[in-house]
């Protein structure tokens, strides 16, 4: 109790509260810009934290990250440029909602759903941090491999073009992830002798090209004109009604997000894809998914932020970051002498509780800031298409350039934008490509490690109970998909 009171004193002072607010606004600004990510926002903030006390420093990172991830839904909804790989899971629905004049509702669902999911994740973090982290630490490369494959399979099989096209999208993403140095021996693969490809293909120019450039080429000058938005005055109008209607999805998304987010290396990206797939499979109207239906948006959005909170479990309790953002945060904790690990809970519990309180404040701050962002973001629809195209494309170029400060990233964006433009015209889903790029290294590393452990015997992948369950689930999902495709083809031919 004393530790909690001390934590209140550490957080509720002018300096920390000002830092939280300013960092949240910064995160909102960066996250809302097309092509800029929460990771970039967090990385940009690190030099500023050098000059801060430990708790304000970590508070800055937490509030900036939470806000930037939520704000990443804005360009996704308005311009079809997802802010994070997680928001790519539901970008089709949110974007189509905006095209129908429901941008405010889509953003409202994203913001309020994220707040609820984030708070759920916080409660989950407080109650289960030690036990869950211990459970996750028991995972080996086998479990991580199957978990990642399960998530990728869900992403490929729920995509709109069918099983073969979904699988090809995913495989293309996995191939792109293999370009560069391999994780086992560091030898060059598919680099075509180009030095720039040695470091691999970053997912940020890929994401910008495949979503933003392809969208502009497709929509073009005759693209959708300004759409009258239904809820311009109150962008959150109707949000609570929708959230109540899909309350089961909200709760399920939060629970699954918390569980998966706690696993190092999994995080919200994979969790959002799994719950979007689950929402579609259990929905009474699965045919509406991807066409501006809020059900998947509610579930995957809740998952996103619940997983974000839960991803701090391995980072805080054992010092094992789950993703790029928590890796940066762990660096800041070490820099400030708050060594993450069991001693953070035992020796200095006030610091642990202070960080937890920052989570709550950051999540609550999302409501007013998200409201302002939603109100101002709708103005983007009133900008003439010609000016919007020019500004977005210049953003695309600068965003792709800024990853490695070379024009090579812009070239990657251009090539992958053309690829996406062609593939999407033939009903290939683009999002599995992005997920393949992001999770490819994780899948390959765990696959190779597992193969070395089992001396090349694939049966060993089913040797551990949890791995066996995950592996069996993956194989069943593929079996069902293949069976369904064959049956549909046969019935189509019979009808003809």
């Amino acid at each position, binding site marked *: 109790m004393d530790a909690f009171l001390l934590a209140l004193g550490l957080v509720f002072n002018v300096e920390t509260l000002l830092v939280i607010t300013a960092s949240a606004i910064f995160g909102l600004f960066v996250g809302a*810009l097309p092509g800029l990510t929460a990771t*970039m926002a967090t990385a940009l903030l690190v030099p500023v934290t050098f000059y801060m006390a430990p708790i304000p420093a970590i508070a800055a990172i937490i509030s900036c990250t939470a806000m930037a991830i939520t704000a990443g839904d804005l360009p996704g909804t308005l311009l079809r440029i997802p802010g994070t790989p997680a928001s790519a899971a539901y970008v089709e629905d949110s974007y189509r909602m905006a*095209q129908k004049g429901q941008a405010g509702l889509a953003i409202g669902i994203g913001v309020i759903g994220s707040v609820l999911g984030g708070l759920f994740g916080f409660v989950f973090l407080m109650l289960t941090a030690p036990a869950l982290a211990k459970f996750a630490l028991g995972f080996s490369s086998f479990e991580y491999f199957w978990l990642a494959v399960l998530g990728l399979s869900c992403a490929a099989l729920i995509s709109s073009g*069918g099983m*073969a096209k979904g*699988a*090809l999208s995913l*495989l*293309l993403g*996995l*191939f792109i992830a*293999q370009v560069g140095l*391999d994780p*086992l*021996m560091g*030898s060059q*693969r*598919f680099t075509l002798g180009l030095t720039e490809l040695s470091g691999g293909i970053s997912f940020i120019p890929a994401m910008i090209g495949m979503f933003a*450039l392809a969208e*502009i*080429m*497709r929509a*073009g*000058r005759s*693209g*959708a004109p300004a759409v009258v938005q239904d809820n311009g005055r109150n962008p959150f109008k109707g949000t609570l009604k929708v959230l109540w209607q899909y309350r089961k999805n909200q709760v399920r998304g939060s629970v699954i997000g918390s569980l998966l987010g706690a696993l190092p290396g999994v995080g919200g990206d994979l969790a959002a894809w799994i719950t979007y797939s689950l929402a579609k499979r259990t929905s009474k109207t699965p045919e509406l998914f991807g*066409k501006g239906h809020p059900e998947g948006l509610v579930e995957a959005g809740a998952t996103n932020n619940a997983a974000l909170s839960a991803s701090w479990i391995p980072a805080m309790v054992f010092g094992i970051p789950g993703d790029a953002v928590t890796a940066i945060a762990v660096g800041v904790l070490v820099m400030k002498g708050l060594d993450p690990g069991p001693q953070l809970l035992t020796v200095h519990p006030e610091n642990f509780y202070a960080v937890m309180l920052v989570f709550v404040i950051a999540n609550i701050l999302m409501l007013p800031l998200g409201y302002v962002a939603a109100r101002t973001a709708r103005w983007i629809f009133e900008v*003439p*298409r*010609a*000016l919007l*195209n*020019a*500004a977005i*494309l*210049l*953003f695309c*170029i*600068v965003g792709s*350039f*800024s990853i490695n*400060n070379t*024009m090579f990233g*812009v*070239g990657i964006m*251009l090539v992958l934008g053309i690829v996406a433009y*062609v*593939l*999407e*015209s*033939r*009903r290939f889903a683009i999002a599995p490509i992005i997920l393949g790029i992001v999770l490819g290294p994780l899948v*390959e590393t765990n*696959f*190779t490690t597992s*193969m*070395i452990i089992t001396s090349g015997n694939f049966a060993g992948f089913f040797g551990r109970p949890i791995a066996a369950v995950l592996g069996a689930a993956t194989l069943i999902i593929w079996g069902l998909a293949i069976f369904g495709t064959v049956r549909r*083809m046969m019935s*189509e031919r019979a009808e*003809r």
Partner: protein
Amino acid sequence: MKTRNYQDVALGGIFAAGGLLILSQALTIHSMPGLPVGPGLFPTLTGAAMAFFGAVLAVQGWLTAPDEDIALLPEEGSRETAILYAPPKFFSPFVLGILGSTLASIVLMPVLGFLVTGLLFTFAVVLLSGGKLLPALIFSPIATGVIYAVFAYGFRVPLPRGLVG
């Protein structure tokens, strides 16, 4: 009359060929001595799977009717479906112009710098997108300047200065 989805057959063939190419390249990657796996194993599996699913897509396209009737023609009042699944028009002036402008900016930006190239690029894209000359003249320097200020001063991104400095 029997109809086939020739575009899917073609794309399936391209993917199958690409998968075989990846497979052939992956098989040339040497594995680590004394280990059952090497850096070529995962690409081998990826290439093989891509070749397999490419072949599946080609066969599917051959056996089933094209889905254009459903996908390419929008339902009544469903404009977004029409936009999303419209066939690519590579030779439309807009698409060629956008691709050409982006390619030109990649080549010119290291030489002319961000400010000059960004100005020309923005101006060209506004006109290509159907904007008038006056808005293009007003908007290009503003957009370029604002984006330059945000990235160069705000995020410390070293945008190309070019030979003209």
